[in-house]
């Protein structure tokens, strides 16, 4: 079954070539430029809408005294819902160890990141005077005031900042090894220009260096991989917790008011389910489109599409259950105000929103009961987009239908969608598409690392060494390294991780204060970790400590401000109203945990390190393709290069004898 998640003809080297080929050679350039021009013009609409907004104020959206939240907050909820859903699906698949996730995780994570950027602009624009957005943050101000931590306005600010940090971090950590691969391919391409032009082209070199800076000196060393696997999973876990806190927090936010229609106890679950539903819908649509445009059928197979379709069907049923329960319980025992709100949703001035939900979100997804629909790319893309449209109608309905019916006859103002509200939303889609196209153009759209891992574990070469190079006498392959240059260490090259691990085990007795052993490979190398005896190293305590300290400090600040330093009677709430501090504190904890992980990943791996002797190893760029390297680094005078080289050369073939052994200059 797992084999179906990857075209069986793929070899690990070729997999990377498919993904790095897109940013480096860029097929479909014409189609990309046409799409990019379209996205840019939408972005121009966004710019115009913002300028008009700054000149005239939020009234241009048609918001009024009763309907204070309309398209602006509906759009925000929609974007952050899609972001939450995409992040959650990628992180949950990672945590569950779904090995086939490589096909969709990069697209899902990119979608999460870009949706968060689009979402984050809305609450700021919605403020009316956006340039004072920082008044929402607790900073030492000359007003002598604290932000009101009981207010959802502050929760939103903290939530968005945290979500942005976590989604950027999750995306970047996943991308880091791929950036290393991209750097090496770009460097090879730059060096190849010498043959054509007589010298290395500056622009090509600059491109490689840009990728190199982004890769922060990633070498695929055993310890890099070890901490990377932990960091990726831990940030994923923090992301899942943040999504749950954010989406249920949004529902608690609405429930804090007295307005009907926002109080059913199933709403936190419905919000979460609908967010994930829309996120998976958009991710599925993007996956299908990218697969078609770049011809990635070998990496994104029908099995992936079928899984996405099944996931959509499950979420669609869960969403249907949420709506049905809300209707059922309100009509059975809800109060008259709640019942009236539900009736208005179905028959009122904005009844179209309710019926759009039914027609776009709940009904089409039932097509996935049929296997033929689950295998059809166009069907999945269309239904995914319909789900997104339905989710927008849901956010609109939940906000506007409730707000429009105020309890004072004087403030019963009709709301109608204004052209500028629509233009702002269309513009934010332009922002999303522009950034998405840039990511597609310059970064690998399908994770190289994850697909290689899949190929290693289940591909044709699984278990056995790639066997391409039958090792003869490895010492004979030694390059003409000047023996009199200061020695950095000995390096050995292998075709598979099994051989690397065997050699590492054999060399382990040399490990001392004079000899530092390390291994490098294109994928995580768990067997070698065992041989190098660094398997038990962990960065999880940093995450736990960072999250606890950050969350605790934020909670303490809320309590100090609200109960002691800035006591303010608001809505009759007690001075120590801790429940309102939970949502921002949890979000802040997830952010500080993520930052701690990031710092630990860099510091413990001694990164960034752009220039490293390991890069002197001839052919080292293949460590991001299909080769594995073992290095013994000299750290003192007692380093016996000859003995180490002989020990390696004496290992039996297929069980640790390297393809080549080299002395590497410092």
């Amino acid at each position, binding site marked *: 079954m797992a084999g179906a998640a990857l075209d069986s003809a793929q070899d690990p080297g070729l997999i990377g070539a498919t993904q790095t080929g897109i940013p480096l050679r860029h097929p479909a350039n014409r189609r990309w430029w046409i799409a990019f021009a379209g996205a840019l013009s939408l972005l121009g609409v966004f710019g115009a809408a913002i300028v008009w907004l700054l000149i005239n104020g939020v009234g241009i959206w048609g918001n009024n005294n009763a309907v204070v939240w309309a398209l602006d907050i509906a759009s925000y909820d929609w974007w952050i819902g899609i972001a939450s859903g995409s992040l959650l699906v990628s992180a949950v698949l990672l945590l569950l160890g779904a090995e086939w996730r490589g096909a969709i995780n990069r697209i899902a994570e990119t979608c999460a990141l870009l949706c968060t950027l689009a979402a984050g602009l809305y609450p700021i624009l919605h403020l009316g005077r956006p340039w004072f957005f920082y008044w929402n943050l607790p*900073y*030492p*101000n*000359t*007003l*002598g*005031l604290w932000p009101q931590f009981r207010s959802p306005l502050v929760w939103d600010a903290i939530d968005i900042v945290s979500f942005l940090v976590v989604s950027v971090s999750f995306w970047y950590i996943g991308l880091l090894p791929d950036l290393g691969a991209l*750097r*090496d391919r770009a*460097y090879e391409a730059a060096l190849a220009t010498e043959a054509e032009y007589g010298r290395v082209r500056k622009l090509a070199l600059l491109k*490689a*260096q840009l990728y*190199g*800076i982004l890769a922060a*000196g990633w070498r695929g060393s055993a310890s890099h991989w070890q901490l990377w696997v932990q960091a990726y999973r831990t940030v994923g876990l923090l992301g899942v917790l943040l999504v749950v806190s954010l989406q249920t927090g949004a529902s608690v936010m609405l429930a804090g008011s007295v307005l009907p229609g926002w109080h059913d106890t199933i709403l936190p679950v419905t919000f979460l389910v609908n967010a994930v539903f829309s996120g998976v819908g958009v991710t599925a649509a993007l996956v299908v489109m990218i697969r078609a445009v770049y011809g990635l059928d070998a990496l994104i197979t029908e099995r992936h599409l079928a899984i996405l379709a099944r996931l959509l069907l499950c979420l669609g049923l869960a969403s249907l259950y949420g709506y049905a329960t809300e209707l059922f319980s309100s009509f059975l025992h809800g109060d008259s105000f709640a019942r009236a709100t539900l009736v208005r949703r179905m028959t009122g001035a904005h009844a179209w929103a309710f019926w759009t939900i039914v027609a776009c979100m709940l009904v089409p997804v039932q097509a996935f009961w049929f296997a033929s629909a689950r295998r059809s790319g166009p069907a999945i893309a269309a239904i995914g987009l319909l789900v997104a449209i339905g989710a927008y109608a849901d956010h609109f309905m939940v906000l506007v239908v409730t707000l429009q019916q105020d309890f004072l006859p004087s403030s019963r103002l009709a709301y109608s969608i204004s052209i500028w509200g629509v233009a702002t939303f269309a513009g934010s889609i332009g922002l999303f598409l522009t950034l998405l196209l840039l990511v597609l153009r310059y970064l690998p759209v399908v994770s190289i690392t994850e697909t290689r891992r899949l190929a290693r574990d289940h591909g044709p070469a699984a278990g056995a060494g790639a066997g391409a190079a039958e090792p003869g006498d490895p010492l004979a392959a030694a390059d003409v390294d000047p023996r009199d240059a200061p020695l950095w260490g000995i390096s050995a090259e292998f075709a598979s991780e099994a051989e690397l691990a065997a050699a590492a085990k054999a060399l382990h007795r040399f490990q001392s204060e004079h000899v530092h052993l390390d291994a490098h490979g294109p994928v995580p190398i768990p067997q070698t970790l065992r041989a190098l005896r660094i398997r038990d190293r962990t960065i999880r305590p940093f995450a736990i400590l960072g999250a606890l300290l950050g969350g605790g400090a934020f909670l303490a600040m809320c309590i100090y401000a609200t109960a002691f330093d800035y006591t*303010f*009677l608001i809505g009759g709430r007690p001075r120590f109203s801790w429940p309102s501090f939970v949502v921002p504190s949890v979000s802040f904890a997830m952010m500080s945990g993520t930052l701690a992980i990031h710092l630990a990943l860099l510091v413990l791996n001694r990164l*960034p*390190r*752009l*220039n490293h002797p390991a*890069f*002197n*190893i*001839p*052919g*080292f*760029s293949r460590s991001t393709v299909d080769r594995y390297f073992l290095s013994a680094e000299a750290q003192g005078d007692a380093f016996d290069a000859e003995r180490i080289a002989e020990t390696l050369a004496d290992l039996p073939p297929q069980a640790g004898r390297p393809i080549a052994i080299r002395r590497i200059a410092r």
Partner: protein
Amino acid sequence: MAQLFSPGADAIYRLTLLTALACLAGVPMVAAGIVRSDYVTGVGVAPPQPAPFSHKHHSGELGVDCRYCHTTVETQATAGLPPTHTCMTCHSQIWTGSDMLKPVRDSYARNEPLQWVRLNRLPQYVYYNHSVHVTKGIGCSTCHGDVTTMQMTYRANAFEMQFCLDCHRNPEKYVRTPDQVWNMNWTPPPDQATLGPKLVAQNHIRGGERLVECSVCHR
């Protein structure tokens, strides 16, 4: 494979990262410092006035009462700026030929007010009433500083919200007996800790709970 980066690149990269981090913390701190500086708030800066009027001379050395010129301070929201007539009550008799006073005599002759440069300005969304402060025992110098030492008048305090709230949260630290309101070099007497709360109760100043409500100033 050769090195893509020279050995020096690491130092530059790390320095850039550290600089970015330092800026992240440093730029807001510098901005906060600038916002609070006298350069922005205008505290201690005496601008040139149409006539070089000295509060030190008139109020400090000669002992002219504040209310001689600022006549409505006890009864109205604004303290009142004196018309040229007020100056001429004395200066039609003394220093009548002084060059320094020529703008005052011109203003009087043309029947046009002197265009004084305003020092203390509150935002238009702040409601402020002089009379209630003065009659409840808040002295001039609490906000305006000791003007009897100012040769040329300058702003003594930046009227940021923090400044107002400091007193609105703890009025008992600043409230005075009626005879002390006009004392320009008042310092809290040794018994302020007992006197303050007594005066607060006596003057019906509802501190903490009432005075910090938004609508007290932002109506």
